[in-house]
Each structure stands twice: as structure tokens, then as C-alpha cells.
């Protein structure tokens, strides 16, 4: 059985790109936090990345088919974990997302639920009776994904909750969802948004959305982050100001320059050239994942890979969009670059799943 699980068969281009992105991330975390209370973040991030590669390796060990068979259990565990956040979770920045762990770490359950969602979607779509996704499947799957989404939204953490949607969307899209349904969903969303505005969103979330639409309205308040981020990016110019020389970052005009706004800090210090490199690396990474999806031995493998791709794309789009003032501030980190243990590890697990699929492509 072990014959197809050699190191040589791992997706080395993918791992190289990942390492490159992580290195740029660590460098930027270091540069952005060296005089702040977060000055330890860069070496912690190194530990997370190393741990990430180990986790990735471990993830490839168990056949993804075996993992898929445990989806109901994993799903139940996720729901239980999310409920546990309510019970044991600690408040930070006005929301309850983290469960304190021994050793001073904090576990963000919702990050790992992303994985379960990807697996759930893959499993469900693999077991379809019909050739295409029907309305009934859509409802069931929507309900299954929607429940944890709702739990996370209640933390409240709208950003992470929304990251559950892309895997579902891409999954049903590839599973042959009819165009009529797609149009219907878009229309439905257009109808739901105003309702959600009134009944679901918290005031601070509305604030963020308003300030996203019109940052100048309250430059010292919610719009502040959006404006400061754009100033940082714009003043970076073509070549950037150099490592540790971005005044917006160094003089702390930029909020959380090592997590959510790491891309502004990067864009300020490395300029447009740096941005092209990073976005290029993400594009290559996506291509690599899609290639693995195409080469997957079965539908399940393909759905897993595409779920990961969808999630990665969503993160990059929303985070980079936020940094340049084209997306609301939702607290979504830039995958592989933003400092943080939970999001780094869950991302590596997903890449592990991709490799898992890859390693089994010649079987069957």
C-alpha cells in the first residue's frame, strides 16, 4: 500500500510555491511587528509553518476515501466544537471565536470546520443518484453547510462564516448545477441581502459595510482602516519603500499589519512589483491545485481539490480586495501569509488533502 506514498510523488511545485508564500509572510510579519507588542509573532509564525508542513505530510497518510467515510462523525464533531466555543470560548475584539488551549494557544474551531465543509460537499456530491445536482440536493446540502455557518455568524464572525460558502458553490457548479438554478440563486441572494441587513447583521458589521462603501465618512472611525490601508498600498509605488521602511506600517497607521492587513504592509514595502509576484504565486498555486483536481482518480478527489481551490481563491479575493478598498473589512486573513496558528494549520491541512488526492491518482 505504501508504494504510492513516496515523498517523490508529492506535488513539489505546489510545496515550493507554498514555501515561497510562507517565507514572504514571515518576513513581512517580522518587518511589520518589530517594535510592537506582537514582536514575537514572526518566529511563532515560523513554528506554525514548520508544523504546517508536518501536518500536511500527516494528512497525506490517511487515504482521503477513509476520511470521507468519517464525514458524519467529523460533521458532528464540528457542530459540537462550535457549540463548545459558546461555552468555553474567550471574547476578543468583540467576538467569541477562540477556545483557550493548554500552552497558551487559542484554537479557532471555525477555521478547521472549513475542512469538514469541503469534505462534506465532496462526499455528498459524490453520492448523487442523478447525473446533475437537483433542487432537492441543493436544499439538503445548503442546510448542512448553512447550519455551522449560522453558528459561526453568531459568534459573530461573518468573514469566516462566508468562507464556508465557496466550497459549496464551486462544488455544485462543477456537479452540473443547471444555469436556471444558478440564476435563481443569484436572484434569491439579491432578495435576501436587504433582509439580512435588517435582521442578521450586527451594528459593527453594518458600520464596516458602510465605511467600505464610503470610507471618507468617518476617517477616524470605521473608515480609518480602509483609508490607511489604501494610503499604505498607494504610497508603496512601483518598487516599494523597502523592508522595515514602510512608514504607514512602521508608524502604526496600519491596523493589524501582520494579520488581516499584512498585504497592505507588504504592498507598501515591496510595491507593485511585490504585489505582482505574490498574486502570481497565488495564481500558480491555484493552477497547481486545479491540475490535481483534473488528474484526480475520482469525483471525490476532484471535489476535494476544487473545494480547496475555491476556498483559497475566496480568501485571496476578499483579503486583497479589502486591502485596496474594494471589499468590506470582514477579518479574513490572507492564506499562508497572515500570522496566526489556526488559519495556517487549516490551510496546510487542505493542501495536505490536495496532495492526498494526488498520491492516489494512479490507483484504480
Amino acid at each position: 500500500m505504501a508504494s504510492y506514498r513516496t515523498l517523490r510523488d508529492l506535488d513539489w511545485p505546489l510545496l515550493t510555491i507554498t514555501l515561497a508564500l510562507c517565507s514572504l509572510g514571515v518576513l513581512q510579519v517580522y518587518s511589520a511587528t518589530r517594535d510592537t507588542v506582537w514582536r514575537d509573532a514572526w518566529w511563532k509564525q515560523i513554528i506554525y509553518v514548520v508544523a504546517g508542513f508536518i501536518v500536511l505530510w500527516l494528512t497525506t497518510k490517511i487515504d482521503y476515501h477513509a476520511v470521507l467515510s468519517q464525514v458524519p462523525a467529523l460533521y458532528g464533531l464540528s457542530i459540537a466544537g462550535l457549540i463548545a466555543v459558546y461555552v468555553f470560548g474567550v471574547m476578543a475584539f468583540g467576538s467569541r471565536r477562540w477556545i483557550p488551549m493548554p500552552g497558551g494557544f487559542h484554537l479557532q474551531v471555525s477555521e478547521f470546520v472549513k475542512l469538514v465543509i469541503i469534505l462534506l460537499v465532496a462526499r455528498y456530491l459524490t453520492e448523487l443518484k442523478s447525473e446533475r445536482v437537483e433542487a432537492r440536493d441543493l436544499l439538503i446540502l445548503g442546510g448542512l453547510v448553512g447550519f455551522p455557518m449560522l453558528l459561526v455568524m453568531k459568534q459573530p464572525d461573518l468573514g469566516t462564516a462566508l468562507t464556508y460558502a465557496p466550497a459549496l458553490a464551486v462544488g455544485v457548479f462543477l456537479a452540473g448545477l443547471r444555469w436556471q438554478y444558478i440564476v435563481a440563486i443569484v436572484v434569491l441572494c439579491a432578495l435576501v441581502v436587504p433582509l439580512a441587513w435588517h435582521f442578521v447583521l450586527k451594528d459593527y458589521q453594518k458600520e464596516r459595510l458602510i465605511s467600505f462603501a464610503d470610507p471618507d465618512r468617518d476617517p477616524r472611525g470605521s473608515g480609518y482602516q480602509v483609508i490607511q490601508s489604501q494610503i499604505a498600498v498607494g504610497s508603496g509605488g512601483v518598487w516599494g519603500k523597502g523592508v522595515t521602511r514602510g512608514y504607514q506600517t512602521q508608524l502604526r497607521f496600519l491596523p493589524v499589519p501582520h494579520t488581516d492587513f499584512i498585504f497592505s504592509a507588504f504592498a507598501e514595502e515591496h510595491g507593485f512589483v511585490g504585489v505582482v509576484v505574490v498574486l502570481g504565486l497565488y495564481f500558480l498555486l491555484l493552477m497547481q491545485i486545479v491540475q490535481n483536481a483534473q488528474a484526480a482518480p475520482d469525483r471525490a478527489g476532484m471535489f476535494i481539490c476544487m473545494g480547496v481551490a475555491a476556498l483559497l481563491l475566496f480568501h485571496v479575493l476578499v483579503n486583497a480586495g479589502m486591502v485596496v478598498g474594494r471589499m468590506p473589512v470582514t477579518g479574513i486573513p490572507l492564506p499562508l501569509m497572515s500570522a496566526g496558528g489556526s488559519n495556517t494549520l487549516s490551510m496546510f491541512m487542505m493542501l495536505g488533502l490536495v496532495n492526498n488526492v494526488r498520491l492516489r491518482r494512479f490507483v484504480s
Partner: protein
Amino acid sequence: MTVRDDLSEVERELVRERLNLWLVGVGGIVALLLMRFWILQVVQFETWTFFARDNQVRKVVVPAMRGNIFDRNHQLLADWRQSYNVTVVPGDVTDEALFRLAEILGMVPEDLRWRMLKNQAWSRFVPVLVAEDISWEELARVEENRLSLPGVDTEIRPVRKYYRDSGLFSHVLGYLGEITREELDDEKYKSRGYRMGDWVGRAGVERMLEDKLRGQDGVSFRLVDARGRQFSADYLGERFESAIYHDKIRELEEMSRMPRPGYSAVLTLDLRLQAAAAREMGDHFGSVVAVDPHTGEILALYSAPVYDPAVFIGGDKAERRAALENPDKPLYNRAIQGIYPPGSIYKIIMAAAGLETGTITPKTRVSCGGSFTFGKVRFGCWKHSGHGAMTVETAIMQSCDVFFYNVGNRLGIDKLAEYSKMCGLGEKSGIDLPHEKEGLVPSQEWKMRTFRQKWYAGETISVAIGQGALTVTPLQLARAIGGIASGGVWHRPHLVRERRDPERARRAELNLDNVNKVVYGMWGVVNEGGGTGGRARLVGFDVCGKTGTAQVASLEAAKGRSHLKDNAWFIGFAPKQSPEIVVVAYWEGGEHGYAAAPVVRDVIKAYFDKKARNAQPPPVLARPPVLLPKPAADIPAPAPPAVLREASTPAGGIQREP
């Protein structure tokens, strides 16, 4: 678990198609993001760089010193002193430091903390002013304890200082006031760069020369972080090894601009004459004006009671209010704002008008029997027994009312008005002080316009001796009589040195014989046995003069204030020919004109004493005109902040003092 590995051809096709669509979507998204970054970082680079600088740089205003004010002999009347203030950075200061600071400043620690919190800006790292104008000793103790006072800093600001703080010059110099919110909204102030906390001249020379005295504030730029914390050398040393911050600070230094001090003003006033006037006035209310009729230069301008202009700068609210609400109206400049009937001094203008029009001649005699009857009304002379036969000369000398009743009656009100206006009555003299009053010269047209009534010839009779509706300011009177005595040239009175501008003088071709007659009369007033102004006599000098009494009692009695006494006027000039100085004194409650005569005498004496001392003409005429820019060299700049030390090229092309 059933895993469907057997993809049908249809399914494969569908997946391939959708995957391609998805890839197109990914490409589109990445392209859109790149486009956005391109716009921000390449197209709009300059804009965002501007914002970035705006963010990180705090502009600090370095206040300019207000120009000094000197008297004509370059005696200092007003300059500035340094006011030491204490600032605290709430984010850096410790409880211990606050306690210690309070101890040094003699404050209650809680008060100090409250003051700090009350004035706190948007960030805890922006310095807050907690104590103003501390003593030198307190400053020294703060500096001594610098190391145990983290977050505490001192700053120096220039503050106006007035000399002769008895208030001797208060009405001339005026005072300063802090600019108000309304004024800041006004385009007039905004366009000239006024800011909150600036001082503005509110009265006197301070107000009239505001633009010249003010100078131009300098600016320096400080590098601050997002919380407004300023970068100082130690802050840098501890945190940044990188030289780029030093480069940045050097760049900011180059953008900084030193303040340009205001121009100094040299006034025409003479400290000694002013002091003589004040000494003679003593505790009495009133005013004294001394003018050089050749030029219009004002040698003394004193109004009593005085106030202390420093109250408006350093004083507390209660003191300020006391000055504003005092029933004696100390802020009121009686020399240019007080309007009074000229009383008998008006007889000089009457005499000149009578002689010039030919209504009377030097030979004309009028017999004074103690009264003059017009229609059914009897107008008495102040000397009830009558003066007997009077010529114009003796009538001036003895201030005979009946003589001038006759002159006035023959001239008619409109001729009186014409000659009064010729002498500058009824209009502003144009002195370079604010709030001057015009007084009133009645005429037929004036009465019709104001009361819709005809002028009665009988009214002319009272005007003829300077009573009735006629009112003047002391300054107007000095100018009018000085102009007649110097043969018909009325210069614009002024306080600030200027080029002599003969064009602006009012001239009339007066017959010198007539002028001499009037002057002889006035000489007699002081120097002849029967004159009313003998107290103004000055041995060795030909002082000419005229007494006057402004009858306020008769006007005010109706209001139940009969305790008020008549006010005394005296005007004098010297020498007889081509007078160099005209002095008018108005003494509230002096009752008789002769009471004010010694004031005039002493001011004239002070003038000639000084002239005797410096045999050569006063430096006035030899000196370049008006406002001399104060040489920058002798201005100790108020401790230029460290970042300015090396400033070399000013930004914005504004010329800076070397």
C-alpha cells in the same frame, strides 16, 4: 459507501466545461485585483504619497514675536517677554511625575490631573498644556528634575509686555485680545492665517498696526506615529537603528520655516510730555492732547482714568470684566472719543471767522453791559457787571460772551458751520487710532435733516460761545486752534511716524493780520493782567492760550445729577509765532477753564525743557519714516525647537530672516 468512480462521458464533458469556466473566472479575478493595485500604486502614487506624509507629519506653529513699540525718542513702550508653559503627554507621564510636577508648581495633584484629562486631545500622546506662564524659579525646578518627570515638557511663548505699567500709554497702545471663534470664521482673518489662540489688537495702535506688528508665525514639522507620539532623539535611538528616520527628520527640518518677527513701530509720542500730562492731571478724569501743528504729530495723548493693558493678556477674567464694566469707563479714550461742547475756546474760531468774513474788523468795538438781548431772550455774559467796550483782542483775552454773541448773530449759523468745518470740527481728524468720534457742527441743513425743524436765529447765539448743539473732541480742538495759530494749515494728526504729506493737510488762505490779532488775544489770555489763563504763564516763553468751560451741569441737571460740576478746558500753544506745540487739556469737574491751565503749562514746559537739552532738532525729522523692521539679530528667538536648528532653505519660497 458508494464511490462513483465511473464518470460517464457526459459527466466528464460537463466537468471539463465547468472547470474551464471556473479558470476563466479565476483569471478574471486576479486580473481585476492587479488592475486595482496598478491604479493605486502606479497611477495614483503621488496622491497616496501626499496622504501618507500628511499622516505622519505634524505641523507645529512657532509663534512670531509681535513688533516692539517705541516713543519718538526710542524709549520702549511695549515689547514681549517669554512666557514659560508646561506641557504633559498623558500617555507618557507617570503618577509620580504628576505628583512631583504639582509639588513644583504649587498645585493640587488632582487639579493638575483634571486639567490634563480635560484638555486631552484625540490621542494620549499629543502634549497637553497644563500650566501657563510659570515663574522662572518654577521653570528651573522643572528642568532640574527633568529625569524624574517623564512625559513633562516645557515650552516658551512670546507674550506682549507693556512698560510704564501705570497705564500711562494704555489709550494709545490699546490692548490685545484672543481671537474669537466668529472671527476665525471670518474670511478677513482666515485669509491672513490667524489660528485659534492667536492674539489680535483690539484697540489703539495695537489694533491699527495689527498687520505690521503681528509678524508671521513659523512652522516646524515633527514626525509622529499613528497615536500622535512625537519622535524625539531618544525615542529614535531606542527604537530605530535605521538611518532612514534621520533622513526623514532632516527632510522635515528643511520644510520648516522660522517665524518672522513683526515690524516695530516708532510713535510720535514723547514719553516725557505724556508723563507731565499724567502728573498734572493727578487723580482727575479728563484728557490731554499735545500736537505739533507743523506736522500733525501727536506728542502726548492721555486719557484718565487709565487701565492696565496687561490685564487683557495675563489677567484673569474677573480683572478683565472689572475693566470692561467699570462705571468710570477706563477703556474709553476721552481724547478722541469724548465729545463735549468746546465752551469759550470756540471763541477763537468765532474771532477768526468774524475777521476773515469781514463781519468784524480789528477795530470793531462792542460794548458789553453784562448781557445781550435777542428778541425776547436775554443772554448773559459770564461777567454779570459787563466788560465795557471790547475789541476782538480784549474779548478773547477776557472771554467776553457779549462780544461773541454779536459776532455770532451777525455771521449766522451757516457761516459758523463753514468755518468750524474748515478747522476740522464735525468730522474725524483721521488720527491713526480706532473708534474716533466726529462731534457735531450744527447748521440749518443739519437741524432740518435731524429734527425736521427750522433753525432759529436765537440758537446761533449759544453756539457762538461754544455751547448748544456744538460738540468737539479734545483732539479736534487742538488741531483746529493749532491750524489757525499756524496761519491756516491743518495737518492730519497721527501717532505713527510717517512721511510728511502736505497734500493731505487742509489749507485755508487766512489773512495773517487776522491770525495775529487772534494770537495776540490768546497771548493776552495768559500774559496780560486781565487774562483768564494767567496760570499757564511760563516765564521766558510766549505761551498763548484760551480757557473754556463745558457746561454739563445744565444739561445733566435735568437727569438729577446736579452734583456734577462744569468741566474745564484749556488750550495753549507756544511759541506765539509759528507754534511748535499745541496742548489741550480737558478736566472733568474742573469748573473753571483756568483750572486746566497748569496742565497745559507743564506739558509745554516739558517740551521746551527737552528741546533745550538737545539743542539739535529731535531725531524725528532726520530718521527714515514710519516702521523700521526690527533687526532679527537682537531677537532671541523663543528657544527654537531642536528640529529647527539646522533649517536652511525655507519652504514655499518665503523669505526668512537670516
